[in-house]
């Protein structure tokens, strides 16, 4: 026997290599093209040659003044940051009660968390916008375009998802440890804070990262509810992209540079936390 045959092997090695290479090529072509465009001078995009005459790394410098990327990055950080922290804090409390106690309405609550994932987001944006707009007209108070308005709408997806993740994570933590603490005279709250929270920290990080990324990636809510000062990165790039159709010289090089800059931190974050995040990726099919 020349080679140990692995029983789990379904694709024969030659087939496996061909499939892997084909998939890798398909994955890499659009990425390589984007990287290429991002260093192509704007005057050469759409020319006869795919490869530029020189590498225009300056695109990565110019784009910061062409679009106010710094503002967009800050806004995305603030809005997605607040939404994710609020949802995780609330989700830990809710998850603890759901996994530790039996009470009326517990199961319907769990199912509604799942059911909420089928509600189209635009269906929530519509009444929230109407509520915000009519309230601000009645009270002469500015709501649309402020951070809290966007943060609240982000909670509509971040909170159910974070709760669902925390329910499954806290459920996997054995009760014995906190019971020991309770026997030693700790209150429920002390047990939660001193025993459960430290143990649940990895799960909380996953929920935080996911809630943050879904906020970071949102275009729908932010495109309606942000003003020029609170515009997130995603909406800025979307607006920048559609502005390139007009006339003059489209700044595709800078646009792709900005796209790279908004994707790279996310991809790195996923790769670093890959092992932990994959579980969250499959939980409910909500993607970051």
């Amino acid at each position, binding site marked *: 026997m020349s080679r140990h045959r692995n029983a789990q092997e379904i694709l024969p090695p030659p087939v496996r290599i061909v499939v892997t290479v084909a998939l890798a090529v398909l994955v890499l072509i659009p990425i390589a093209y984007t990287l290429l465009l991002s260093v192509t001078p704007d005057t050469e995009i759409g020319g006869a040659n795919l490869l530029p005459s020189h590498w225009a790394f300056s695109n990565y410098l110019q784009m910061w003044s062409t679009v106010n990327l710094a503002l967009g990055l800050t806004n995305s950080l603030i809005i997605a940051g607040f939404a994710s922290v609020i949802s995780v804090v609330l989700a830990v409390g809710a998850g603890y009660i759901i996994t530790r106690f039996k009470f009326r309405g517990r199961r319907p609550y769990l199912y509604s968390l799942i059911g909420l994932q089928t509600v189209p987001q635009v269906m929530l944006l519509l009444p929230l916008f109407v509520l915000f707009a009519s309230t601000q007209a009645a009270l002469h108070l500015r709501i649309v375009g402020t951070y809290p308005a966007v943060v609240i709408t982000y909670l509509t997806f971040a909170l159910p998802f974070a709760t669902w993740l925390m329910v499954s994570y806290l459920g996997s933590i054995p009760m014995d440890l906190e019971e020991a603490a309770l026997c030693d005279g700790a209150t429920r709250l002390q047990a939660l804070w001193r025993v459960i929270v430290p143990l649940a920290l990895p799960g909380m990080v996953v929920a935080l990262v996911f809630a943050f990324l879904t906020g970071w990636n949102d275009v729908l809510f932010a495109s309606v509810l942000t003003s020029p000062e609170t515009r997130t990165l995603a909406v800025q790039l979307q607006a920048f992209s559609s502005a390139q159709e007009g006339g003059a010289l489209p700044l595709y090089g800078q646009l792709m540079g900005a796209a790279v800059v908004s994707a790279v931190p996310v991809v790195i974050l996923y790769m670093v936390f890959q092992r932990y995040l994959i579980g969250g990726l499959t*939980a409910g099919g909500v993607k970051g």
Partner: protein
Amino acid sequence: MSIQPVETAPEATTTIVSAERVEARAIGSRPMWLLWPSVLLLVVIIGIPLLIAIYISFLNLDQYTLKSWIQAPWVGLANYVTALTAGNVIGASALTSLGVSVGFSLLTTLFITPIGILAALTVNTQYRGRTFVRSLYLVPYVIPTFVTALVWRQMFLNGTGLVDRFLAGIHVANINTYWLLGPNSFWAMVIADTWASWAFIYIMVLAGLQSISHDHYEAADIDGANSWQKLTRVVLPQLRHILGLALLLSTLYHFNNFTLPFVLFGTPPPAQADVLPLNIYVSSFQLFNFGLGGAMAVITLIIMLIPGFMYIRALRLGEMTAS
């Protein structure tokens, strides 16, 4: 056999069992108030708005009546009739959009399934560089959707995009083929979404593969099964449950995908790619016909109830077998 962290749904079902067990010996008071903020918030930001959305769908509500929307004229089912019959500015009625959305979500799911299964099979055995391949497979999936859309917008630009350059290079299509306008736009959307989302099926299948006992493979080997028989008689039957869940979730996700077509085409989108969420968005926030948008949203929700119900049922079934 350890349960993989990926199997979140079944894990949650064990939760339900263990909570009941612990209840019997629970000590101390029940700090139920920990639950109230999140329940209250969910009711205020989701429950009430959902009811308002349904109410709005029966109103003639536009930017002029918005200020006092409660007093806006009640028009009964008129918005629903308009949604299902008349087109909006770009000529797509809700019914047309529904067709586009159903076609888009089902076709994309159909395309990503074999790719995802094949990809999972390539990394199911240990070899050098496997970790790298696994990470690489995830990249398109984790790139933010708005970036994916920006990238594919460049890929599909007529005349200068990579797709047209390639197709013209192999003499399949004219260099000036339009992908972001007209009938091709539907396919542009399907291709871009297939590229971005096949890894979802891959992740789910990989999780399922890891839970298949090694004995099953060995038994198949002893029986002299070839690769194809192993796949169709051993692996796929055992993946049935997780794959069913994956297909359902994928269809739901694609149906509600707003970002990709919105950034890929801008507004108004080509009629052939005017998916339901985009149509609702344009009707509500660009034409300011909130009543019509509401009616379309309610129609979407009713349609979503079917897969949503199937999803919850699938999880409940898992729970019954677990207890």
